């Protein structure tokens, strides 16, 4: 919460800019979520929805509460009040692995791979979330277990290829170059077959050419049928790929609209003005 150079008082009240037309079904609903840490309010009555099949951008200056929002959605934090629903099912107070199995997967702002596993194994850990063999079944190596194991491997290879890092399958994750580690994180998240894929600043540290590639990749992920929630700092990147954008500032939602509208929203401009895109 150390944001500097924000002019004007924070905007009160609900979403500015008018809610985008919602023809499609909401996949994820964040419903009036408040998250307090001690005396600090990180999320202040935040509500928004992610619709099925869209790419939603979640933006805001540093410390606006974007990652906190991710953490509440994925069960890392339990909100002080409010509810999060996936396909209408409440997520609050479910454990993290259950939420993952219900269909949310994420990547991390700071890369968090399993460093001592190969790239392939990292992805396999993701596919394991969808395995249905029981522990005894796995111990006894029943045919179903073997079938699932084989299918998991095939899928993991396919995802690595999809992310363009198929050749790194047998390298330890910690030995991969930075960009490949980011891609591997996405592959691992996709392996859990999420309905909603949450990417936390996936382009951090990328050069423009790599960012361009990433944009293309995100579109292709959406085309595979995944809904994508994208936390991003880089306004240009968000504008280029998202269908709709939610803007947070000081833990409050200040905008929720299509990119063009958000770009011209005075509150958003005020929040961002003078703050370079990549200020960290």
């Amino acid at each position, binding site marked *: 919460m150390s944001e500097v150079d924000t002019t004007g008082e924070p905007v009160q009240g609900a979403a500015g800019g008018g809610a985008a037309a919602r023809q499609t079904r909401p996949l994820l609903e964040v419903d009036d979520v408040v998250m307090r840490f001690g005396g600090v309010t990180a999320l202040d009555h935040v509500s928004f929805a992610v619709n099925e099949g869209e790419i939603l951008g979640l933006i805001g200056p540093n410390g606006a509460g974007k990652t906190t929002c991710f953490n509440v959605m994925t069960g890392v934090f339990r909100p002080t009040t409010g509810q999060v629903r996936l396909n209408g099912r409440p997520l609050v107070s479910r454990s993290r692995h259950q939420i993952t199995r219900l269909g949310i997967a994420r990547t991390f702002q700071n890369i968090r791979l*399993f460093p001592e596993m190969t790239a392939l194994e990292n992805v396999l850990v993701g596919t394991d979330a969808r395995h249905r063999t029981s522990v005894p079944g796995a111990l006894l190596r029943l045919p179903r277990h073997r079938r699932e194991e084989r299918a998991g491997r095939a899928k993991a290879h396919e995802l690595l290829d999809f992310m363009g890092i198929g050749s790194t399958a047998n390298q330890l994750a910690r030995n991969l170059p930075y960009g490949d580690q980011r891609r591997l994180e996405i592959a691992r998240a996709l392996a859990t077959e999420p309905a909603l894929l949450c990417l936390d600043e996936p382009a951090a540290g990328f050069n423009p050419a790599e960012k361009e590639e990433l944009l293309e990749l995100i579109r292709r992920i959406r085309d595979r049928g995944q809904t994508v929630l994208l936390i991003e700092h880089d306004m240009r990147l968000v504008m280029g790929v998202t269908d709709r954008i939610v803007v947070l500032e000081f833990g409050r939602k200040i905008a929720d609209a299509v990119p063009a509208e958000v770009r011209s929203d005075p509150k958003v401009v005020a929040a961002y003005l003078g703050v370079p895109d990549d200020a960290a």
Partner: protein
Amino acid sequence: MNFHFLFSNIGDLTVTGLSQGAIYALIALGYTLVYGLLKLINFAHSEVFMMGTFGALIAWNLTGLHENDPTPSLPMMVVYLLVGLVGAMVWSGVTALTVEFVAYRPLRRRNAPRLVFLITAIGASVAISEAVGVITSRNQYGMPDLFKTTNLATIGNVHITNVDLGVVVAAVVMMVVLDQFINRTRLGRGIRAVAQDPDTAALMGINKNRVIVLTFALGGVMAGAAALLYNLKIGVTRADIGFLLGIKAFTAAVLGGIGNLRGALLGGLALGLVENYGSALFGTSWRDVVAFVVLVVILMFRPTGLLGESLGKARA
């Protein structure tokens, strides 16, 4: 120092040292698995092993085999080996899980500090050992002879008995199976993922508690196997045998690099050999002195043990 004795019997000392070390190694696995996963030194593991020795005995008694019965026929021997193995593994496994459910899980839920876990572990160990001591009146129980110890082969002046060979082979097979399990299967991957990063593992859909239970069960089952081999080799059990063997096995785990499965095997075998050579050279009363001096020296040069730490690095 009796160099003559050491060198003229080096072969036999090696064989018996390896078989003792193999038992250390199997027990060491339990320490290393739990440590690798939770950074917890599960002192109660020594009692998990002790319970296994009784588990095998109870299983034999229930199926009609008693201490001074004549050795059974070959097919019956195989049956009784399996009966003893299952009995030991079940008792050990149940003990390990009970400790996890009763002692550790409530602490984890409350995010207890590490010191609390440590003292709980020691407490659980003492409680189990004392309870069994009271129940058994601290008597010692002899095992039935499943087979006669015989010399399988004599190479030069090295004698290899069926017991020593069996113990080493069985222990190595168990280790290989476990190693494959941890490195090649989904459940093993889950264990490694939680060991490397428990939070991320949970976000990737891994049920951490289930992984922990599985790990305790694996450690327990391995201790059960060790208990059966111990029964076959030593032939006697008591409520207080866990303590000394537990310390030795823990030492073996540290020696090989705690958290490292292959390290446990290496550490166990190395400790068994060092003990045997040491007692041959200086006299049996120096055995533990030699063993621990060697440990300290090795840790001075390799602070993380022979093969280094971390269950996550089990591929190393």
